[in-house]
């Protein structure tokens, strides 16, 4: 009972703080629309970490600051179209995800890289993952530095849209509905693309596994 009361208080407090935050942001946005450009800094300060987290999960780290910069500039340019029916942070997250998709589209579909492009250490990592006898051994393998390179390599084999949807749905654990909202696609389209992209990723992994077992 006590716990329920506390959790209800917590919900009310967090709802209150969410309302206060939304009201602060709509006030800031009103000021910016009224010509107070410097007020935009409050939004940058507030959402910087979130944008870096989103962009950092999709792009190479050395490109994150530049793309995050573009996300905020695009948000400033599109502020007139922000209707305020959803939180500003959510609207900004959509811009960030689409910018990441644009980034990979601009890069063009990377030429399929042969499995031989993986270094011996990276191939050994996959071998270690597959042969891990226990959960601890598996987690130990995951924490190794080669893991990131193999993820980047596997995702590099996919096209921009497949890469984004597979990252959101299968690697980050977003629901299809959430991913469709972030990508600006319909739910059925997101579902089909996510399935196809996963299938493509599986094909890539099976090639790696064949290569490893040889």
């Amino acid at each position, binding site marked *: 009972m006590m716990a329920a009361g506390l959790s209800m208080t917590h919900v009310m407090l967090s709802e209150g703080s969410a309302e206060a935050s939304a009201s602060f942001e709509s006030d800031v946005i009103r000021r910016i629309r009224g010509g107070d450009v410097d007020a935009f800094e409050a939004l940058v300060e507030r959402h910087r970490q979130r944008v870096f987290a989103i962009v950092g999960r999709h792009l190479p780290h050395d490109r994150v600051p530049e793309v995050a910069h573009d996300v905020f500039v695009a948000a400033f340019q599109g502020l007139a179209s922000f209707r305020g029916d959803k939180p500003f942070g959510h609207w900004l997250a959509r811009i960030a995800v689409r910018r990441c998709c644009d980034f990979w589209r601009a890069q063009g579909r990377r030429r399929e890289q042969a499995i031989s492009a993986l270094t011996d250490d990276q191939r050994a990592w996959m071998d270690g*993952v597959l042969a891990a006898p226990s959960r601890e051994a598996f987690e130990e393998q995951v924490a190794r530095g080669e893991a990131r390179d193999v993820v980047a390599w596997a995702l590099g084999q996919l096209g921009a849209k497949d890469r984004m949807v597979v990252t959101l749905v299968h690697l980050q654990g977003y629901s299809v509905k959430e991913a469709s909202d972030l990508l600006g696609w319909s739910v059925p389209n997101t579902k089909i693309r996510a399935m196809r992209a996963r299938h493509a990723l599986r094909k890539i*992994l099976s090639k790696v596994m064949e290569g490893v077992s040889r």
Partner: protein
Amino acid sequence: MSTESMKMEKAERALAAAHQAVAAPDAPAGWQAGVMRSVRGLSMQRAAAAADGLLPRLAWATVAMAAVAWLAGWHLGCDPSLDMAMAVLEDPAGFSTSLIWGL
């Protein structure tokens, strides 16, 4: 479940876990100031573009007003009606004021 698909699941789980383990980078020093510089620059460009657009619009409005004055003068039989149009072109604001007072 076959050994192959179990292996596949394991590999996928490893990729997902490795992906989650990647820490997001932090904004480098001066990054926020850079964003604000870009935003201010955009805002100034927009203001300049708006001002650029206003001048041609004012010029066109003056010419239109002069044409209307010339036509009105010609229609009312003023002689020479060109004088009214010239008065508009020389001092559009003054002509508008006198026209309003005249009405």
